[in-house]
């Protein structure tokens, strides 16, 4: 997934796409865990930053890129572009570029699955910026009022576009909010892929069995941050990556962007011998490049 995103970044640098693309470097661990936990009848609803989930649910980089190029051979037949990309065959039933928009839709999807019978679970993704929207709270209320099997996953990178959350608003304690709605709450941090996968699998199964919604907060870093000098100031300002090309990140430098806990690939690389990592990178790169020929 990291290599796929870095390849897409190289194409963004070359201005290959007309549609805006939001890379998710640093978000990979939770996406892999969600995709691994999902069963065939489960549903996934996503946000504008959906590339990591779509890549986790869809093995074809070619079809992902074709969608960004608005080609019929794209993942959604060239109908969705990037920010609204769905893949119903893989359970990605709805994606919205509007902050918190997918959450109310997720309650209806979960209700629909319940009406149809079975033990499927609906998983809805959002970010910490969406906590400021009323739709977030409306969703918790509807899901709890109707006992819907809904997992709300909040990717918390502490940024909303180019502004740190603590520069913009008061702190929001999600655990307390979950408690106020009587929901189970889980917190993940540190990019431990095995822990993430085990937790999401358990969350998915418990939600299905209990027919109750729950909340998962994942602390993560959107890699690719940089410093800009703003107009009227001689001081540099640290900015989080939001969209477009990461000009200072290159595939040629390998898949690890930040040699710290912030980078899930770095954390994964610590679990296996370096030689294996090098071999994997070579093999995966060759495979992906062959898709792009």
């Amino acid at each position: 997934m990291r290599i796929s995103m870095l390849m897409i970044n190289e194409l963004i640098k070359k201005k290959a796409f007309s549609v805006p693309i939001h890379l998710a470097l640093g978000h990979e661990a939770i996406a892999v865990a969600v995709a691994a936990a999902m069963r065939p009848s489960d549903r996934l609803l996503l946000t504008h930053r959906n590339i990591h989930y779509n890549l986790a649910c869809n093995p074809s980089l070619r079809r992902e890129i074709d969608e960004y190029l608005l080609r019929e051979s794209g993942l959604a037949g060239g109908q969705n572009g990037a920010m609204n990309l769905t893949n119903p065959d893989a359970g990605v039933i709805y994606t919205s570029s509007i902050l918190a928009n997918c959450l109310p839709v997720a309650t209806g999807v979960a209700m629909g699955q319940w009406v149809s019978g079975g033990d499927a679970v609906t998983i809805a993704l959002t970010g910490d910026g969406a906590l400021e929207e009323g739709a977030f709270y409306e969703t918790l209320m509807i899901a709890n009022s109707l006992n819907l099997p809904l997992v709300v996953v909040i990717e918390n990178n502490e940024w909303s576009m180019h502004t740190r959350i603590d520069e913009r608003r008061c702190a929001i304690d999600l655990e307390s909010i979950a408690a106020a709605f009587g929901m189970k709450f889980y917190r993940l941090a540190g990019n431990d892929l095995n822990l993430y996968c085990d937790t999401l699998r358990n969350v998915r199964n418990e939600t299905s069995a209990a027919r109750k919604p729950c909340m998962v907060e994942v602390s993560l870093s959107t890699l690719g941050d940089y410093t800009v000098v703003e107009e009227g100031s001689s001081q540099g300002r640290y900015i989080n990556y939001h969209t477009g090309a990461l000009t200072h990140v290159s595939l040629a430098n390998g898949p690890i962007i930040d040699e710290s806990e912030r980078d899930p690939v770095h954390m994964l690389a610590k679990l296996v011998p370096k030689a294996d990592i090098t071999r994997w990178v070579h093999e995966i790169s060759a495979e992906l490049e062959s898709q792009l020929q």
Partner: protein
Amino acid sequence: MTYLAHVNGRIRQVIGKHGRFVSFGQNIGAGSHLAGLTRSLPRSDDQRVVNMPNCENGLIGFGFGLMLEGIDSAFFCKQLDFLLLGCDQIVNTYNMVRLRRPAASFSIVCIAVDSGFEGPQSRLNNLADFGSLADIPTFTISNGPDADAVIDRHLIAPGFRIIAVSQRLFRTEVSRPSQDFADVSVDADAHILRHAAGSDATIAAFNFAFPQAVSVQQDLRDRGLTASLYSIAGTRVLNWDTVIEDVRRTGRLILIDDSRSRNRLADRLRAAVADAGIRCTTIPLYRAIREEDIRPNADEFSVDTEQLYQALNTAVQ
């Protein structure tokens, strides 16, 4: 029978004949049942009636989510202006969902609070405004035949639409035109209903102005003039041919619109008639848009038929 009882009965009938269905909304299964609009909705294992929390944006998204899962549903909403809270879903989610051409049905059935005494909320009474947000099929019900045609064809049908009823009309008798014209004709989409055929004028009623249009038609008849009478139930009319042909024959077009909007559907018919190259006398009878209507008021919309008659006579001379 009252307008409200007629609409409620038709809704119950259509849902009752259908299979799996979810009716949802605030207080729809309790208390006044939205003043009676949702009283005695069919309930069974397959047909659910769900009282929901007060969160309109969430509820509209909920309906689209059901639609994505192939479940037919209707959101019964107490007031048209409440939909303002869900504009993101009405526009953005609808635009995403319609790309998939869903087979399931999602309808919002809401009450236009046009009785006036709610003050600022009464100011918003034009369903066409909502329709224009995302080219949404929208329908007004202002008489019995409208109710039958719109509810039968659109309450449960693939896709999304908004259907509005008028609070002002709730306790009135179901409007019917003169018994001299008992046959009502309806176009294929239930957009345009012809209630009567005449030779001296064409009357078209928009939004919830049908009772006023009936009054005008009867007044003209008392003066020896016969008029065709149309209610425009669909606000997304793409084909005005049936009305245009009638105007070509009568030479007079009377437009009656009770909406408070600069985006009047009546003006689209007026333009279509002009585009067709028809020379006719057009008399628009529109509700005045007044600043004082923001305050609670009786919200009366009456037509000065004497003035109308003079206008028609002047045109004839």
